[in-house]
């Protein structure tokens, strides 16, 4: 369980959100919704250790948790960025195996086997040797999901998973997110797509823009 307690974040004196508290139960899907500019991405970046909180605390399974400092412990938070940020010079397979090999010190064989399994689950088995520029938006997203999952995170976060996709592909992402939920993954989905959120969420959290 991840718990955020009275967290506050500002950029140059401008408050993004203040005294925000939130709990995410294991195996559930939390959707963070709100208007553009409300600070959804910023929340995700704080949880994944890309930004530092001004105030407040994060607890993981009751223990204080600092994603910035915990970089060398077990993988905790996985992130699927809005623009995926695949590594353009690596094949799909290499994109997925790179971090397990370097950060988790997995052998090449272990990493490749795990990656192939993930690719099969995400119906990308035949794309292993392609480069990101050869993939469609939806395929890139699935590679990004596989890459994050290969690090065996406790929680997987998505930033606007439907924004870069054709409407028809929304159902496909939804299916993947629900498939991962069935497998027990805890997920945080940040989106301005209220309808999408309602379809998948166990819990929604609305971020209101701050009155300055």
């Amino acid at each position: 369980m991840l718990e955020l307690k009275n967290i506050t974040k500002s950029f140059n004196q401008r408050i993004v959100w203040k005294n925000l508290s939130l709990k995410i139960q294991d195996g559930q899907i939390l959707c963070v919704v709100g208007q553009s500019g409300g600070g959804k991405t910023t929340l995700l970046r704080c949880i994944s250790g890309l930004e530092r909180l001004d105030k407040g605390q994060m607890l993981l399974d009751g223990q204080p948790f600092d994603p910035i400092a915990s970089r060398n412990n077990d993988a905790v938070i996985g992130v699927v960025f809005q623009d995926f940020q695949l590594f353009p010079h690596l094949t799909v397979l290499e994109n997925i195996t790179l971090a397990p090999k370097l950060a988790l010190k997995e052998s090449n064989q272990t990493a490749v086997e795990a990656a192939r399994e993930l690719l099969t689950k995400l119906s990308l088995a035949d794309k292993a040797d392609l480069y990101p520029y050869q993939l469609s938006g939806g395929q890139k997203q699935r590679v990004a999901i596989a890459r994050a999952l290969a690090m065996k995170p406790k929680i997987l976060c998505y930033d606007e998973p439907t924004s870069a996709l054709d409407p028809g592909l929304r159902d496909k992402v939804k299916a993947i997110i629900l498939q991962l939920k069935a497998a027990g993954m805890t997920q945080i989905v940040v989106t301005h797509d209220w309808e999408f959120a309602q379809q998948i969420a166990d819990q929604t959290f609305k971020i209101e823009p701050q009155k300055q």
Partner: protein
Amino acid sequence: MEYILQILPSLLSGARMTLSIFFWTLLGALPLGLIVGLGLTSRFRPFKAVLRLYVWLMRGTPLLLQLIFVFYGLPMIGFTLERYPAALFAFILNYTAYFAEIFRGGLQSIDPGQYESAKVLRLTYWQTIRKIVTPQVVKIVLPSIGNEVINLVKDSSLVYVIGLGDLLRAGNVATSRDVTLVPLVLVGIIYLLMTAVLTFVLRKCEQHYSYWK
């Protein structure tokens, strides 16, 4: 023809000096340039200011002056180098600055999201530089580096001012001794051959990196 064969050995030994300056300068200046380039993009201001000053000095003054300074000037303050190491020292110092600027541009064109995505995948800083950033930067900077590499072949002729026997000097000596243009023409041809080979190699390198976009 006979004359050509007669002077060819001395020209080729000059060419060997040219190539050795070329080779060792590249070997030193490319990695150093990458490191200085990284420094130029760092957030640590005083450090960046020092590197900027260095790059400005190296790019703002003639390489010829730097060469003379290292070989004739530094001994006056008690720092004496032999001709060949002095030449290499000046060349590496100078080319590192040019390469650093090229690498800086390449580094700054990498999407910050690439660093962040490496970070959440828990790669260390150096792993990110090695495995994620460098390959992308190399592809971007290759054409500009190629230009400098070709320049370096020709710039290496400047070592004649500190009395090193490079290709140009060999040709010059033969021309003034035998009062004929033939050696200079040969020198030109040898330079052209060297740059042609390099142009070919550089094009191959660029092709090698064209497997991704």
